[in-house]
């Protein structure tokens, strides 16, 4: 039974991916992707039902460890090949370094992945699998109509969809493998698979920018790979187990013994695009939207935070935990600050992702049961909301041919449904009683005793509100007196994914109490003495406070429904807006008379605070600070 489920979760996507590549038929591919999605969702739910436990794949004549090792070498060879093509000594060097480490481990140190159990599905892994399989599958479904439109838009002669869907499904399998691995060598393999998939997906469009950005993603992630390889080598040198469960159970470590764990965390930082590694994720937005949706919500970046969160019990109350907390909090503020100056919707989303990942990392660094709960809640809610937002932006981009937030002005009257979804997505990031804010509440309560992190968190939250609100403001802007817009026509899979995600985020938010009590709390209690979080009736409670989710939800719902009904009964007379008395009746309704009695169209735009928040002004100090923080992290352990 279990092996079947795990097979479905990890191996099946690989097979279906390869099938997608070779069976170049639209209908077949469609069938395969839908089947894959259904199977993944089913398997992940089945996994969740079956409870946690370890699993080592049966030998049955296959040496899985060797297979993984071969895979590793193959991947590294691919990276070196890419480096040679690019003529980039950096990439070649980084890949070579890893190869050297791997050769040493495989041939000289003599470990062959015998650590057992190789796979271990605890609560945290199960939650991750659920997110990856459900949100990720929904993204693949969304990609079906999207890629059709996309290829129509960019006019390419031969469809590259087979390749695209291969990597997309591979990605899901690799992610599932990554979060389920107990054996670190296995984890390393899946880690590199996600890197490869990510790089290939970023360069999908094949234009110069895409290729450049894919190489940037490659070398940045290879740094993470090197850090992980370094960590593994060190672990081996220190004669310590190369399995997560044993490492965590091994008790507290001090000083030099923490170094491998710190290196693994740095690997996590690169994947989670923490500063100074944020560049690759920003560059990744050149890829088609489903890729962004996937990278930012359920896969790739989540691998990074997962790794840190997984290791968190191992570095509780140490120097590492302090630094991880600060690095995360710093990223949280810095990315939120940079997002303010962006008008490119995808870039705003990217910075917001970086920022949120920073918060999750920071929570992992705070490393109290409550903070870990906050981190897990955030991973869940962020995945759903972000996927929704990216998908909506993708649809909008196809419709208005732009990702510029300024171009989305008044979009409500053109694409009411998509905008509605987008607004729900954004509100779910910033407003109570939605999940992301509940998580933020938990994290704030968790940090209350940590002044530095708390300060950074408060500032970051304020910036977050600023850039999101600005964005919704642009979307909702309407001219009074215009008739109520009709819903736009969208492909079935779009509507399906939108509605599914929107309903999920709503339901999970309402159910935040049970979610925290029944799902998150056990995951925390597995490694910590207490859950830190609980539920009373439908409310979320912790030691310090309580969040009356249901009552707030009810009241807010009423506050929306009552005026809606009132407005339905009473049609409000539309009229022109106030423009100092010089408004004129025009087709747009927003023109005013000005000099020479001519009419001039009023223009409104959001604020971008070039002077305060521009990248040019802040990146030059933010990146060095982040590098210094990481150096301090390593240095503090070495000396």
């Amino acid at each position, binding site marked *: 039974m279990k092996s079947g489920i795990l097979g479905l979760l990890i191996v099946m996507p690989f097979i279906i991916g390869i099938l997608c590549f070779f069976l170049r038929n639209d209908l077949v591919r469609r069938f395969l992707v839908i089947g894959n999605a259904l199977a993944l969702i089913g398997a992940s739910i089945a996994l969740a039902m079956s409870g946690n436990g370890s699993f080592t794949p049966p030998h049955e004549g296959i040496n899985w460890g060797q297979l993984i090792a071969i895979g590793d070498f193959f991947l590294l060879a691919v990276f070196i090949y890419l480096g040679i093509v690019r003529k980039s000594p950096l990439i070649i060097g980084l890949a070579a370094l890893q190869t050297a480490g791997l050769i040493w481990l495989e041939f000289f140190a003599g470990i062959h992945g015998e650590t057992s159990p190789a796979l271990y599905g605890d609560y945290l892994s199960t939650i991750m699998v659920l997110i990856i399989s459900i949100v990720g599958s929904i993204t693949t479904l969304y990609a079906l109509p999207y890629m059709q439109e996309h290829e129509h838009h960019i006019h390419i002669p031969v469809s590259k969809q087979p390749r695209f869907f291969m990597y997309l499904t591979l990605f899901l399998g690799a992610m599932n493998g990554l979060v389920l691995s107990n054996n670190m060598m296995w984890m390393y393999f899946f880690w590199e698979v996600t890197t490869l998939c990510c790089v290939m997906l970023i360069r999908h469009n094949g234009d110069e920018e895409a290729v450049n950005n894919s190489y940037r993603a490659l070398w940045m992630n290879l740094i993470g790979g090197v850090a992980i390889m370094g960590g593994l080598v060190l672990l081996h040198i220190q004669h310590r187990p190369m399995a997560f469960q044993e490492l965590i159970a091994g008790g507290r470590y001090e000083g030099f013994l923490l170094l491998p764990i710190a290196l693994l965390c740095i690997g996590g930082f690169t994947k989670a695009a923490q500063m100074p590694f944020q560049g690759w994720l920003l560059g990744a937005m050149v890829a088609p939207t489903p890729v962004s949706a996937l990278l930012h919500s359920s896969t790739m970046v989540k691998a990074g935070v997962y790794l840190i969160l997984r290791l968190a019990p191992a570095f509780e109350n140490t120097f590492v935990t302090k630094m991880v907390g600060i690095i995360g909090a710093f990223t949280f503020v810095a990315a939120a600050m940079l997002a303010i100056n962006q008008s490119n919707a995808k870039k705003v989303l990217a910075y917001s992702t970086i920022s949120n990942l920073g918060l999750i990392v920071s929570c992992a660094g705070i490393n109290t049961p409550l903070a870990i709960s906050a981190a897990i809640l955030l991973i869940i809610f962020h995945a759903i909301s972000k996927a929704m937002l990216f998908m909506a932006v993708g649809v909008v981009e196809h419709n208005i041919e732009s990702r510029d937030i300024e171009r989305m002005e008044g979009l409500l009257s053109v694409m009411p449904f998509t905008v509605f979804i987008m607004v729900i997505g954004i509100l779910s990031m910033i407003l109570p009683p939605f999940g992301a804010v509940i998580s933020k509440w938990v994290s704030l309560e968790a940090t209350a005793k940590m002044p530095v992190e708390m300060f950074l968190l408060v500032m970051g939250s304020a910036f977050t509100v600023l850039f999101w609100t600005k964005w919704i403001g642009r979307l909702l802007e309407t001219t009074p007196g215009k008739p109520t817009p009709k819903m736009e026509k969208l492909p079935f899979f779009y509507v399906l994914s939108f509605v599914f995600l929107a309903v999920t985020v709503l339901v999970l938010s309402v159910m935040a109490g049970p979610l925290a009590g029944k799902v998150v709390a056990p995951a925390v209690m597995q490694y910590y003495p207490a859950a830190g979080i609980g539920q009373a009736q439908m409310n979320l409670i912790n030691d310090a406070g309580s969040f009356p989710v249901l009552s707030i939800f009810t009241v807010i719902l009423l506050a929306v429904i009552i005026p809606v009904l009132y407005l339905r009964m009473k049609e409000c007379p539309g*009229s*022109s807006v*106030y423009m100092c*008395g*010089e*408004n004129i009746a025009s087709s747009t309704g927003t023109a005013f*008379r000005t000099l020479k*009695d001519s009419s001039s169209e009023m223009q409104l735009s959001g604020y971008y605070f070039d002077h305060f928040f521009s990248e040019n002004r802040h990146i030059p100090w933010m990146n060095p600070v982040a590098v210094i923080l990481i150096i301090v992290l390593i240095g503090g352990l070495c000396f």
Partner: protein
Amino acid sequence: MSSFDTSNIKSPWILHYDTGSCNGCDIEVLACLTPLYDVERFGILNVGNPRHADILVITGAANKRSARVLRNLYEQMPDPKMVVAVGICAVSGGVLHNCYNVLGGVDKVIPVDVYVPGCAARPEAIIDGIVLALQKIPEKRKLLKSREAKTA
């Protein structure tokens, strides 16, 4: 009088617009707000936004450009609304009667409820004028209601 009527009388918010006056009446309207006359005693605020205003206080003889603005402002005021023409220019054009760009009196553009004479109209006269306008409000509200009942 209903309590709504009372509140309408006790809280008149004014919007001042100059349609081409010499400034004399404008500064007298402003002077009404200052400590010596302090019309806030009667709840009067100068709101500067037609959407919030109850009483439109107009100074100046209305030329063609400002007539257009005046119409817009008047339309953007919510009912019941009152118009007070302050100063001889706004009442009838006065000394500007033979200027080529003057329409001569605000009542050529929008209906005026109270005429406040004077060149420039004294703050006392302006207060008197607003009080006169307020006295007319219950009547206006009644008229408005009956009109609404008819259209419904």
